[in-house]
């Protein structure tokens, strides 16, 4: 058995990002889309932490702190939008939300 390398982490994060992207692109429920977006955030964070581990540099971890803060802000805003949208149109289905469609 070899040792843990950067490529292992990069491939894991690519797969996690792909699963998140599949969810974002195929699900109809907007809350599920936001949850899959969180998976993609996590994949990016794994990348940053892995690079910080395999280089003598801690900047990746510092950047991950900021990414987590941005993810928290994004979820708060996104769910606020979901609630106000549900109040107006009684649906969380992204196919039925087409107010701006002419």
């Amino acid at each position, binding site marked *: 058995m070899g040792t843990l390398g950067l490529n292992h*982490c990069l491939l894991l994060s*690519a797969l*996690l990002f792909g699963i998140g992207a*599949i969810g974002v692109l195929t699900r109809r*429920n907007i809350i*599920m889309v936001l949850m899959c977006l969180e998976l993609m955030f996590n994949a990016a964070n*794994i990348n940053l932490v892995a690079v910080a581990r395999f280089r003598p540099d801690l900047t990746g*971890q510092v950047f991950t702190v900021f990414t987590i803060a941005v993810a928290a802000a994004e979820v708060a*805003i996104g769910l*606020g939008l979901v609630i106000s949208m549900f109040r107006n149109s009684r649906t969380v289905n992204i196919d039925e939300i087409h107010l701006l469609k002419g």
Partner: protein
Amino acid sequence: MELLFFYIFAAVILGSAVMMVTRRNMVHAVVWMVITFIGVASLYILLEAEFLAAVQILVYTGGIVVLFLFVIMLVNLGDIYQVEWLHRQWLPALLLALLLVTEIGFMVWVGAQDVPAAPEQSEAILRGLGGNVETLGMALYTDFLLPFEVASMLLLVAMIGAIYLAKKRV
């Protein structure tokens, strides 16, 4: 040994992520999401980022998951098994996402030759200064002070915006 644990955590992360994406019941999906986040936190510990592992548990499984659960309870959807859960363009979307994964995987595979071997002393700077938390705090409050303050401002703006958006009458 390290690699064995990596494979265990990777299996947990990817398995629960797949389960999460394919659940029709959103509460079940949230529970699978918790398992994914805990797997990612374990991976952070393996990658010697102890502070971020704690933050991951606190912010994601403690904050974001609870927020999602609140919204799922608030938005009562009735019988979820009756509605169609994938939208009409799911097949092209799936193919596009698979293409994306192949592309990233190919790039990692091509770049594999250029990746230098992992340094023996992984965080040489870290060891000199003390623990992970101490070093990270030092970096945050010296070199990254301005981004840190901007992030706090962003969180404040996001909080005000979320309250404004979710309010009954604007």
